[in-house]
């Protein structure tokens, strides 16, 4: 087991595409580290560079204490699970699992032992004598995971391993992966573009955008204080409300008159945007205390909660998360009130967190 250190990674493909602009990551030993970002932001490329399948243009990669820049994938002692599982189609499950071990030249009895153990962990018993095309997507996924496990590598790399599964199975597998990683304590780098997956799995999350790291933090940090407008818009469903504010009398005021508690250290003379989570707002009766006038545009009934979309004084489409017991009709005049603590505030021009 080992940590992974990525320093100033830059990758330019021969055709001129810059897939990774500049990435620094410091992944701790035993950590479940998630790389999250939209399609094309360079997640796969970064992962493949760590695996040694792609040579970075510049930058260093260390696994444990070893500088692996010039090591071939085989010598890096890591296992990777691909988005499409890449099970060898001409081999039975059993042989798919045994293959990496045979490559290492382990004695037969030990191969058998390890295959059985991995099969038990991933509950593959009845599938051992089938070929991949006779397995369902979820089963193939489990075989792919088991194949990564048998080698007991220093780290796991997972490239969107659950994308091809249906929602229910995905949730199950998510739990399973998290449990497994905790059990084995092996470092895992998990790539996804699904923020729910990232939040529920990761010890820490790195948010990537256009080949750069926008933020690294625990799920809570990332959720509470997104480091940039990009992160603010990317994390959370529905996403954060980005409300233009001014500093007046030591308070933050929106155009529509909504007042927010100001964070310390606000800069002056800049256009600012406050990031307000839907659950930090409240729809009230019209004219309630500290509320501003607003109008319900629409309501999404999700069963356990209602997402109200309201307009208030020039600010359109503010989303508010309310318990299902509080009901307002569409188009109803209502009040809007901020209930949370000081929100993160961003500079409009740099798009970065300023306070």
């Amino acid at each position, binding site marked *: 087991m080992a940590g992974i250190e990525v320093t100033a990674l830059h990758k330019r493909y021969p*055709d001129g595409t810059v897939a990774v602009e500049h990435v620094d990551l410091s992944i701790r030993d035993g950590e479940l580290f998630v790389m999250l970002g939209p399609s094309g932001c360079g997640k796969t490329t970064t992962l493949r560079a760590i695996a*040694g399948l792609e040579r970075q243009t510049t930058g260093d990669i260390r696994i444990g204490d070893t500088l692996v820049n010039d090591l071939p994938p*085989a010598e890096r002692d890591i296992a990777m699970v*691909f988005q499409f599982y*890449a099970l060898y*189609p001409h081999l039975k499950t059993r042989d798919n699992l045994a293959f*990496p071990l045979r490559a290492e030249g382990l004695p037969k009895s030990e191969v058998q032992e390890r295959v059985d153990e991995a099969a038990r962990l991933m509950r593959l018993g009845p599938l051992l004598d089938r070929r991949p095309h006779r397995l369902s997507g979820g089963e193939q996924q489990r075989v792919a995971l088991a194949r990564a496990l048998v080698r007991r590598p220093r780290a796991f790399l997972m490239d969107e391993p659950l994308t091809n599964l249906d929602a229910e199975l995905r949730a199950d597998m998510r739990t399973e992966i998290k449990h497994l990683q905790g059990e084995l304590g092996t470092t895992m780098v998990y790539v996804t573009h699904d923020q729910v997956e990232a939040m529920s799995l990761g010890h820490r999350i790195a948010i990537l955008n256009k080949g750069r790291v926008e933020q690294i933090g625990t799920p809570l940090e990332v959720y509470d204080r997104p480091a940039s407008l990009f992160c603010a818009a990317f994390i959370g469903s529905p996403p954060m409300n980005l409300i233009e504010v001014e500093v007046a009398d030591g308070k933050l005021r929106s155009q529509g008159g909504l007042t927010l508690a100001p964070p310390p250290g606000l800069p002056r003379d800049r256009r600012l945007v406050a990031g307000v989570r839907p659950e930090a707002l409240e729809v009230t009766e019209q004219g309630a205390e500290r509320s501003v006038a607003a109008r319900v545009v629409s309501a999404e009934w999700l069963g356990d909660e209602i997402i109200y979309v309201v307009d208030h004084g020039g600010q359109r489409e503010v989303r508010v998360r309310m318990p299902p017991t509080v009901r307002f009709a569409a188009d109803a005049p209502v009040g809007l009130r901020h209930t949370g603590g000081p929100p993160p505030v961003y500079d409009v021009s740099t798009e970065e967190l300023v306070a």
Partner: protein
Amino acid sequence: MAVSVDEAVATGPARDRTPSARRLGGRGRSVLEVVLLTVLAVVMLFPVLWMIETSIKENRDVYAIPAKFFNFTVTMDHFKDVFVAPGGGRSALSAAFLNSVLVAGVSTALATVLGVPAAWAYSRFSVKAKKDQLFFILSTRFMPPVVVVIPIFLMYRQVGLIDSKLGLILIYAAFNVPFTIWMMKGFVDEVPSEYEDAAMLDGYTRLQAFWRFTLPLLLPGIAATAVFALIFSWNEFVFAIFLTSSDGVRTAPPAIAGLIGGTTVDWGLVAAASLVFALPVLIFAYLVRKHLVAGVTLGAVRR
């Protein structure tokens, strides 16, 4: 080459057309179509039929006027003559067939051994000016081979490859390599590179990964490609007649052609030799059809 490929491919669709046309048109139209197709088939197949008949007729029946369609005595003498010389021992024709087997087999093997790894490299790696290189490779097949036969002849005379099996093998391989690269590149593109990635992470080198994982998946494609190359080498006539002269080197196509042109032509022998010559091509064309229809089935691909 081109002719045999066209034939092998064209049989499929032509046969399928009748039922769908029947659905479209009325009954009259379908009758007309069947009649036309039958006429066409008879016209096309008659020479073949006649060749088969001639090969089993006795010589006097071959020249009989009016021609005998059914009431002739069947003999296998011509087939015997193809393989056995009149005085006993091996005939010149059978030696030519052996030469053909050798030349076609070795040149195909050579083209496959060279072309498959090249196709893999073009598919997997970023090569400088890849498109231009591939176009250049293909462009060697643009011109009809007969255009270069004189220069090749002169070059071969310089290096002493005239009238040698090696010379034929080399020139056929040279014509088959571009074809193999192009056809195989399509097959390699179909095999996801993740198999090799996974194998490399599992501890194999890139070459081992290719050898142990990609190659087995390519086998049907290689078989289909090799059969096409084989048919080209087997049928090739122009280079064979220009570059070889002695019986010991000559392949079957010029040898069979050489049967015609004496004072008397033993048509029975010509027909029998042609039949023997056509048989492997027919079998292989059939195999290719099967491979192309079945396609390459790859197991666990979910994208």
